[in-house]
């Protein structure tokens, strides 16, 4: 291994895995050469640097897999999971640094971050399965625990460690080594493959969990899968985005795409395109003005989001008269006088309820349809 200063990926030191690693490393090298050549021909100064080649590769891969997973999360109102897992990934980084300084090993902190984040992901699922709901409180507890653990572990090793921590908190373009790029290619391949194979199940669960269960989809299993994939994406994106801002890549492009798209596939595609714009423009600006990459990318993403909201508003105004003829809520009161419409028979007028143990979904259905 002729690896430069940064700690080598653990896998690369295992003989069995060294062949695929070498192959991927060679591919990353090819990409780097290609970008360098393009930069030279077009006279783009920032493409002279190998770390920028890596940054653009990693950025482009992040901008595919973050909105890909984010689309499923956001439409289940689980946007917070990305944030919680990012903070536990920080604890994983701290564990890696701690082990390295204690035992003098050279494990990449990103590998320990993956392990810890995946464990946290499964823990979140376990909590939600046993308490029967994803709730803000348990998520907030996982988030704070992760961050606190990271902070404590890092403060235990005073010395040089505290200095290097900013790169994990805020992300850093210049530290994306070839090893890190290879790690990201592997993460990307895993995420893309799993989502491709399980797309239908994930979509069904996202759209309607109960109907998915009735249709025989093993919902808890897919929830665990989804959260684990989120952990992988978060760790992958952390290199550039930093712990604090990584969740934005899961959410902001997806929210922007939701303003524009009608269909789910369309929304997925749009979110990836918008994320690519944010990442490529963000990295370029970050290099040019010497600003932090994560923050710059997120600001560009938010600008894209605002543009999408405005475009979406304009779009819906143009197609406003297409809205279905029967907006039922508006019409109901007028129709209510019909003697033989027993529509609101139930509920409202029955004073004593046999028992209130009934499932909550249909407690007040009838009242709702009459009241507005």
């Amino acid at each position, binding site marked *: 291994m002729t690896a430069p200063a940064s700690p080598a990926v653990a896998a690369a030191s295992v003989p069995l895995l060294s062949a695929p690693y070498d192959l991927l490393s060679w591919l990353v090298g090819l990409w780097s050469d290609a970008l360098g050549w393009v930069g030279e021909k077009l006279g783009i100064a920032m493409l002279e640097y190998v770390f920028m080649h890596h940054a653009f590769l990693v950025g482009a891969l992040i901008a595919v897999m973050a909105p890909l997973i984010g689309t499923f999360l956001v439409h289940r109102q689980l946007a917070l999971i990305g944030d919680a897992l990012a903070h536990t990934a920080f604890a994983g980084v701290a564990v890696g640094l701690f082990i390295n300084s204690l035992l003098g090993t050279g494990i990449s902190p990103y590998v320990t971050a993956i392990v810890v984040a995946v464990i946290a992901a499964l823990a979140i699922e376990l909590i939600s399965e046993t308490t029967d709901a994803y709730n803000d409180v348990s998520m907030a507890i996982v988030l704070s625990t992760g961050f606190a653990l990271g902070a404590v572990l890092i403060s235990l090793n005073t010395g040089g460690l505290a200095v290097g921590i900013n790169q994990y908190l805020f992300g850093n373009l210049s530290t994306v080594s070839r090893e890190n790029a290879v790690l990201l290619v592997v993460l990307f391949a895993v995420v893309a493959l799993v989502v491709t194979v399980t797309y239908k199940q994930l979509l069904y669960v996202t759209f309607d969990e109960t109907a998915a269960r009735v*249709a025989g989809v093993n919902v808890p299993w897919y929830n665990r899968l989804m959260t684990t994939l989120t952990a992988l994406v978060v760790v992958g994106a952390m290199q550039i985005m930093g712990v604090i801002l990584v969740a934005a890549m899961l959410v902001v492009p997806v929210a922007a795409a939701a303003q524009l798209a009608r269909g*789910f596939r369309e929304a997925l595609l749009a979110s990836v395109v918008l994320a690519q714009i944010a990442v490529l423009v963000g990295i370029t600006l970050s290099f040019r003005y010497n600003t932090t990459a994560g923050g710059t990318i997120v600001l560009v993403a938010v600008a894209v989001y605002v543009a999408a909201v405005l475009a979406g508003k304009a779009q819906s105004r143009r197609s406003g008269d297409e809205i279905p003829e*029967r907006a039922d809520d508006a019409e109901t009161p007028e129709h209510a006088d019909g003697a033989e419409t027993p529509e609101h028979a139930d*509920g409202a007028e029955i004073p004593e309820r046999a028992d209130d143990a009934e499932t909550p979904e249909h407690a007040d259905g009838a009242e709702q349809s009459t009241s507005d």
Partner: protein
Amino acid sequence: MSREPTPTDTDDAPLVEAEALTFGYAAVPVVEDVDLRVERGEYVGIVGPNGSGKSTLLRLLLGLHEADSGSAELLGHPARAFAERERVGYVAQDVTEDEKRMPITVSEVVLMGRFPHAGFGRVTAADREHAREALRTVGIEHLADRKITALSGGQRQRTYIARALAGEAELLVLDEPTVGVDAESVDAFFDLLDGLVADGLTVLLVEHDIGAVIEHASRVVCLNREVYFDGDPTAFAESDALDRAYGTNVRREEGGIVT
């Protein structure tokens, strides 16, 4: 209409069979000692006051809850085994508008009905044809590319029926499908169900609208924790089961029953 019941060797077996089914969230049973068999081709309406456990019974039959005692079988398998679920279609109360702003088109939703058939494989052209056919059957073909949240409540419920039909379901289970749907669309919705039953679909419906159930279903089950009545709609209308199940608040009026 091109629905053809899939012939299987279990053709005569009941699609739904519950025996001495009991379930409670706490110590108090919500559903107690319920026996229910639904044969192929039946149109069964379950009615009962709020909190009578009718939706809970449905969830038990679908395997969404584990019964405290008794057994629930769906298509000849224990409900909790979730076997052969491509044969079951499910339409719940419409919850799309309040919590879901998700971008998804009508045709994408209907195509989900094919997912249990496709498994991990690709969605084929034949799957898409099934979905289109189902949209035609429920009469909303022209809305295929609309965003589901842009539809009215009635149109959305038709979409979910189409999803079940696209999956070639033999049994359609509906849980208060007309809540939040305007009166005019409700009538059209029940007419659609009538047509599907005539084509051989088996329907199990939980509905708060007693009048509609008496008018359309071939069999009424009146539930208030226990089964108060199970049989012919006309006999149900003439019986005192309603009064017993609902307490004294039921007024009988000319041409209909109002609670």
